[in-house]
């Protein structure tokens, strides 16, 4: 194993990049900030790979250990509750740091070309550094509160990156939306943390899991735990934590921010909104998987269904969108839905834990091909200066490399063997098939749709009509852009061949990867069907698409309008929260509370004005008051207070 320092450097190097670029970038570094960031990222990626290699190859007694490399007390709440800053190495975290650093590195390189000549170039790299740091901190966290901290940090860095073009109102709106929606989910996460920590008496992942899952303490816990609305506190805790995850991972119904987040620069979408941050939710559930699986199977069930529903809905919507990045965004959502329900249908330990492995596996492969898709789309947009399919078509001549890699990615995601997506998806379907048929069918349907919309995208970008250039100059991406594409393409092609189950499994005991040809006929067939359909409709220019759309009628329209979920949110926030609650509060403050204060003032003055008459200026009247006062006193003391 590499030393603590080296491992600690993995997140710290990007941080250093952030600090340097952030403080001195604008004035002194300029463009070199990008190269600096990339160099640091490269170093960190190498360290990560080295760590992963040595972790998985290190001798272990048939079970991968959980190594707490570092555990510093950051904030001591009380005797047993404390936030620790730690580094926890176990299969998933190691796998994640590899993914994160690699994709981030690719994006760093790619952006050097993609954002050439941007005024805030250094700032951009600073943000990238910040994001990578936070993401690594998140995946390495050994303490649930540490996770929360970095969870927030990735949120804010994604906010900054979405709002990178801060002078575009749409970008501003998008970043605010993204932050607030995820923030809302984080609220759930926070309360969940409070409940879990209170139930387990610790914030440390290991201890928490062991306390909650171990038969005696866990059972005792469940019995004493206060129940609310008929569910045990623990159930609530797990559910709330999952809501946090759902928010980050854009699960239905908290997914609305993801499509808008595409306002950010495309490489950012590739990094954050495809490969890494959005899977944080999946990672979180995986991290606490024992708790979910052992203590609160009901919640796990919910996870499964939420995943499935998100998958199918996203897939349907994706079929109708024309903005290529939005299509990709919905596909991301749908794929994450896969991962989620894969976890949902899994059990803890042994063969039953297949779904867990599958989910992680899919996370891994998806990172590759989805990043690739985005970067490819980026290249296209870079070339066409538009996000809309209508402005594209026939680009395969102009962008050969992009075309090829994009094709690979599409095949991969469509689950065509022997590409990466095929294997992971097979495992997921298998797991679903074992434990929950309903979800299995949904998943099948989704995979068919996936193939369809991906190839709809592919054809309408690179085929359909011959490309007629319009608008200003086109620049072909330099090698800085094509390089990452190729590398990721290789990844997307061959990542699936890794015997993943051997490394990652729910109980960290290697799992034989079983692969059953007969089972995978159906999904592959569906996939191919989808592809053919897409080809029939979109391969060359025709009005078939519109005909189908017309035939679909209401369904198409509502799918096109994303099932009006945004509108619902609009209504709730604008109308109810702002207009009703907010205005009332402001009004109440101004009129009632403040009014009361002012009223006392005016009342006093009124009284003062009222009684001024008694000072009439007549001596004799004064004498009368004098006498009355005197008589009153006399009466009071002689008769009343005897």
């Amino acid at each position, binding site marked *: 194993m590499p030393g603590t320092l080296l491992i600690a450097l993995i997140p710290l190097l990007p941080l250093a990049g952030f600090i340097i670029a952030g403080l001195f970038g604008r004035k002194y570094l300029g463009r070199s900030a990008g190269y600096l960031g990339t160099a640091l990222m490269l170093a960190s990626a190498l360290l990560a790979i080295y760590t992963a290699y040595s972790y998985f190859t290190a001798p272990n007694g048939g079970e991968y250990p959980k190594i707490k490399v570092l555990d510093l007390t950051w904030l001591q709440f009380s005797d047993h509750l404390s936030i620790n800053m730690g580094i926890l190495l176990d299969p998933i975290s190691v796998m994640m740091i590899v993914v994160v650093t690699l994709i981030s590195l690719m994006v760093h390189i790619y952006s050097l070309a993609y954002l050439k000549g941007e005024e805030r170039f250094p700032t951009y790299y600073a943000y990238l550094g910040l994001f990578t740091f936070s993401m690594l901190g998140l995946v390495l966290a050994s303490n649930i509160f540490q996770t929360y901290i970095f969870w927030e940090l990735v949120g804010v860095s994604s906010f900054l990156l979405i709002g990178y073009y801060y002078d575009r109102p749409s970008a501003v709106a998008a970043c605010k939306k993204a932050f*607030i929606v995820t*923030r809302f989910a984080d609220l759930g996460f926070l309360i969940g943390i409070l409940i879990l920590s209170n139930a387990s008496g610790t914030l440390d992942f290991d201890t928490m899991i062991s306390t909650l899952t171990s038969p005696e303490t866990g059972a005792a816990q469940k019995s004493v735990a206060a129940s609310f609305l008929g569910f045990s506190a623990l159930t609530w805790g797990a559910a709330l934590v999952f809501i946090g995850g759902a928010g980050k991972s854009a699960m239905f119904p908290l997914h609305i921010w993801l499509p808008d987040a595409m306002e950010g620069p495309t490489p950012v979408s590739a990094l954050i909104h495809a490969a890494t941050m959005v899977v944080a939710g999946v990672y979180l559930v995986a991290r606490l998987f024992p708790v979910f699986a052992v203590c609160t199977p009901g919640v796990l069930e919910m996870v499964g269904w939420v995943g499935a529903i998100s998958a199918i809905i996203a897939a349907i919507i994706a079929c109708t969108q024309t903005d290529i990045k939005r299509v990709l965004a919905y596909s991301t959502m749908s794929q994450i839905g896969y991962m989620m329900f894969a976890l949902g249908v899994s059990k803890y330990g042994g063969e039953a834990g297949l779904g867990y492995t599958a989910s992680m596996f899919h996370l891994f492969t998806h990172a590759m091909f989805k990043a690739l898709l985005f970067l490819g789309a980026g290249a296209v947009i870079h070339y066409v200066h538009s996000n809309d399919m209508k402005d594209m078509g026939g680009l395969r001549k102009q962008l050969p490399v992009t075309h090829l890699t994009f094709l690979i990615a599409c095949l991969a995601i469509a689950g065509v063997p022997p590409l990466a997506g095929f294997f992971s998806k097979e495992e997921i379907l298998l797991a679903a098939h074992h434990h929950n048929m309903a979800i299995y069918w949904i998943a099948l349907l989704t995979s068919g749709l996936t193939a369809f919309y991906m190839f709809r995208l592919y054809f309408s970008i690179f085929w359909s009509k011959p490309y007629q250039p319009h608008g200003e100059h086109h620049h072909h991406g330099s090698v800085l852009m094509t390089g990452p594409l190729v590398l990721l393409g290789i990844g997307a092609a061959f990542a699936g061949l890794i015997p993943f189950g051997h490394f990652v499994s729910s109980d960290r005991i290697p799992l034989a990867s079983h692969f059953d040809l007969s089972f995978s006929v159906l999904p592959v067939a569906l996939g191919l069907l989808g592809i053919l359909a897409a080809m029939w409709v979109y391969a060359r220019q025709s009005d078939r698409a519109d005909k189908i759309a017309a035939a679909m009628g209401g369904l198409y329209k509502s799918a096109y309008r994303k099932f009006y979920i945004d509108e619902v949110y609009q209504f709730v926030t604008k109308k109810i929260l*702002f207009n009703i609650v907010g205005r*009332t509060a402001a009004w109440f403050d101004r009129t009632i509370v403040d009014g009361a204060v002012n009223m006392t003032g005016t009342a006093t003055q009124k009284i003062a004005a009222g009684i001024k008459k008694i000072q009439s200026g007549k001596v004799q009247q004064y004498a009368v008051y004098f006498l009355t006062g005197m008589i009153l006193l006399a009466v009071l003391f002689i008769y009343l207070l005897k």
Partner: protein
Amino acid sequence: MNLLLLIGAPLLTAIAVLTCRNKEQVKWVSLTGSFIQLGLSVALYFLFQQEKALHPGDQFLFNQEHKLFEAININLHFGVDGLGVAMIMLTSLVLVAGVLVSWNVEKMTKEFYFLLLLLALGAYGFFISLDLFILFFFLEISVIPKYLLIGIWGSGKKEYSANKLALMLMGGSALILVGILGLYFTSGHSFDIMVLALNNVPTQAQYIIFPLLFAGFGVFTALFPLHTWVPDGHSSAPTAGSMFLAGISMKLGGYGCLRVATYLLPEGAKEYANIIIVLSVIAILYGAFATMMQKDLKYINAYSSVSHVGFSLLGIGMLTQTAITGAMMQMVSHGLMTALFFAVIGMIYDRTHTRMVNEMGGLMKVMPFITTVFFLVGLCSLGLPGLSGFVAEMTVFVGSWENGDAFHRIATIAATASIVVTAVYILRAIGNTAMGPIKNEAHLQLKDATWNERLAAILLLGGILAIGIVPGWLNDLLQPAAHEIMNRLSGK
């Protein structure tokens, strides 16, 4: 360390300021003076650590007692514990920043800085005095400077706000006065906190006195529904004035609620804790929602202050050690944060001459530094990890959650819900001012921060980050103080 230094330094500076001949001298004298005070407070921190290491048992360190008004047993009794030290550091930091940001006050500069230093003097004295009478004396000292600062150098409907502030604070101190006298007569004719703590106040008296004291200090710290001086006062005050008001004066109230009300009257605290919780939760949410509707940056921060101070009151109401520590942390953090917030608003206002969010936009293009600070302080106020707000709020939440019953749980959840609303209004403010297209062409000519503004912002940011990134030191400073209060509450 002789605590009288903390009173002497601002006093001497103020006198020196009076003797200055021209504006430049005034500025530099008060700057040096305030830096000396900053140095003193930092020194105090380290000496306190040493001393604490030597006498871990003592609650208050650097005790010193001088006879005054023996006839009614009033003594100059000074001493600090962790909370006091933290508050003193906060005060000195805000003072330096305040002096720096009001660098280009042209109108009656001398008087301005004089009053500023007087405010600081009051705050220091308040935080170090252990004799209720003297404490009250220092509390009152700050009323008039506030009034004049707002009334003379303020903006908008300044006379109205100044009057309102002075009178409401006076009302608060009237209640406090009654409470203090009540303490004096119910327990052994003494104003000394430690003596009062020793001979316990009879429970019945506590039930009467606690609400008086708590409401009295509550006025200072904007306890709902006594908060209404806050929006007007803050928004009309000059930049440094608002920084002091929100950064320190409100903390005087919080400190009083802890040190005087809760510490001396534990039974009363237990009796009324639930009311405090309800009020503070209302303040938190209601302040947040009211903020969403504001258009004026200063009003936004003023209302958000109401909401944020609610957290520290909530922490007090929860009566657990962690929560109380959180309350103290929130005081410090909010002090720094809101001071910085007002400083930034002041900087923006000096340039754009408007505070209306909808009249600005895209300022990030012309003043990157200021907007960056604006971002950071905004993020701090919505509780982003790495900045002080997060630490404080989380401590309060975790502490509150230690109470198992449904009432406290629901209150806590309601309070946590505010982090979303906070995010909404903060992002709204930032989005409309810093981001988006530039609305007003004239803004294109604006300059970024000058050296003094940069220095002020950096100092305060330093504080925020120091707490946000390594909260341990502050926690260790405040835990013992909270522990003492808990001992009282648990009747030890």
